[in-house]
């Protein structure tokens, strides 16, 4: 390989390598230019005073407030459903499972993690059909169903990150607790989990990010374009990602499009903040624990 080829290849690497950064910059700039001007309180609350909307005195019709509320509720509900099984599953795989169990369950979780989100949405939808057949009455696509499907979606991430965190504990720390007379459960809860809490929390936050951004699942299991304010778990609801998708294909006038850009910017910022939080948790905690 002569010098010239080498130079050429290096240059090519630089060009290719900086391309993703350039694309990210273009996306951010474009969103800021087109959506930045619409970013104010009216985007979220329309003309309703913010306090009234937050306390539920007045309905917001032309703002992002219902969609934001829907997404928040959805993420909280998903987390409530997935957190305990996810952590327990991770602990079980790392500490209790036999090698055979670990291999089979690991393969299963890998497959679930790789399933396209629309397939999971479809599974949720078929569940609603099944329930509808079993209990003839009103049980259609709703928030509870979406949360269940999303919980299923983020479960493998929680399990895997917990498992990886526990597996990375050095042997010396692992055997200290039992040597001092702690039972296995005490050792896990009081020594092993706290020592890796930053990785586990980081994993949870990233899972939250995934639940917040997913559109395909909620599209099939109950998100609609205009449901008004969130009312009950068994109702259809508005969500931010679905709103953006809806606007991109069905917008009727410039004002609506402007709101769509605003919504995209809000969602982008939200996911950026979640990522920053995960990063800070990882770095901050690790500094404290190393001291």
């Amino acid at each position, binding site marked *: 390989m002569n010098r010239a080829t080498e130079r050429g290849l290096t240059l090519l690497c630089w060009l290719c390598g900086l391309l993703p950064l350039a694309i990210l910059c273009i996306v951010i700039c*474009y969103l800021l230019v087109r959506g930045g001007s619409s970013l104010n309180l009216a985007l979220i609350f329309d003309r309703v005073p913010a306090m009234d909307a937050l306390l539920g005195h007045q309905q917001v019709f032309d703002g992002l407030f219902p969609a934001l509320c829907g997404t928040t509720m959805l993420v909280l509900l998903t987390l409530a459903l997935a957190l305990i099984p996810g952590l327990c*599953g991770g602990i079980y795989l790392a500490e209790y499972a036999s090698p055979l169990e670990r291999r089979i369950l690991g393969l299963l979780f890998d497959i679930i993690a790789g*399933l396209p989100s629309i397939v999971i949405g479809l599974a949720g939808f078929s569940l609603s059909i099944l329930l509808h057949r079993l209990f003839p009455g009103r049980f259609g696509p709703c928030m509870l169903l979406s949360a269940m499907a999303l919980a299923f979606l983020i479960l493998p991430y929680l399990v895997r990150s917990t498992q990886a965190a526990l597996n990375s504990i050095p042997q010396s720390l692992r055997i200290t607790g039992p040597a001092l007379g702690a039972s296995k459960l005490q050792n896990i809860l009081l020594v092993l989990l706290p020592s890796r809490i930053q990785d586990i929390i980081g994993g949870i936050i990233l899972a939250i990010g995934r639940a917040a951004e997913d559109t395909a699942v909620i599209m099939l299991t109950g998100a609609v374009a205009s449901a008004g304010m969130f009312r009950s778990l068994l109702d259809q609801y508005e969500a931010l990602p679905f709103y953006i998708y809806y606007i991109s294909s069905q917008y009727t006038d410039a004002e609506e499009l402007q709101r769509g850009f605003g919504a995209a910017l809000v969602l982008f910022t939200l996911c950026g903040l979640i990522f920053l939080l995960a990063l800070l948790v990882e770095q901050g905690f690790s500094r404290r624990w190393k001291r």
Partner: protein
Amino acid sequence: MAMGSGLLLIAILCMMAVLGWPLVENGRFFALFSTTWSPHAQAYGILPMILGSLRITVLALLFSLPMSIGTACLAELLAPRPLRRLLLVTIRFMAGVPTVVYGFVAVFLLVPLMREYLIFGSGFSILTASLVLAVLIAPTMIIFFVNGLQSVPRSYCHAVDSLGARPMQKLIYLLLPQAYPSLLIGVILGLGRAMGDTLISLMLAGNSVALPESVAESGRTLTAHIALVIAADFSSMEFTTIFACGLILSLFTVCLIVSIRLLDRFGTRGAQHREMSTESRP
């Protein structure tokens, strides 16, 4: 805890059964693989969607591969140190950017450009979708590539360095050949993400059901088909085809994951070296 895990497993299997049931009930599985989709003529072939999915996926992979390898090499070897860290953090951030935001920006930025300069149609085409998809799957691949390059045994690197190799020579003759199992795993994962993505192809590929003749035409993917049919109506045969799509996508995923497992098994010979080298590291 063991019971919780067991229950989970059962729940998962139930979900799978529910997913596949209407198709078994129907029993007309193989009639689905014809090339025409026209509900009025009772023809429900999903072959155009399968081909659409494959085309978009392969194209996205072709666009994404050079970009990913370039970035990975840059982040691991060629760039100055502060830039490496910045690059890695940015890439991890890009993995978390909502798909729908990419789609939204592309609809209003890339589609008009395509319409003006490249394909002169509506601008919604397989090519447009695969370009955006390439950006979407790049972070997944880059993260795996970087991991693969990092896990090349330290002792080999020192040996090559002490022989006076330049960075590019080290990359071509040592790192890339040594790391190729994990490079392959990264590509497979990227393939899975590209195949499974719904929003990009739904928003950008145009969704026509005809068999596309070139990449500049509009096409429909399996994932987009599921979303569109559910949005359209709940009735009869048309509706059951989406379960066939779901099944194909699931089977595809299972194949990918199993192949990754097998690759990993082959890679374990390298892992022994790796352990030895980590011990000798200061």
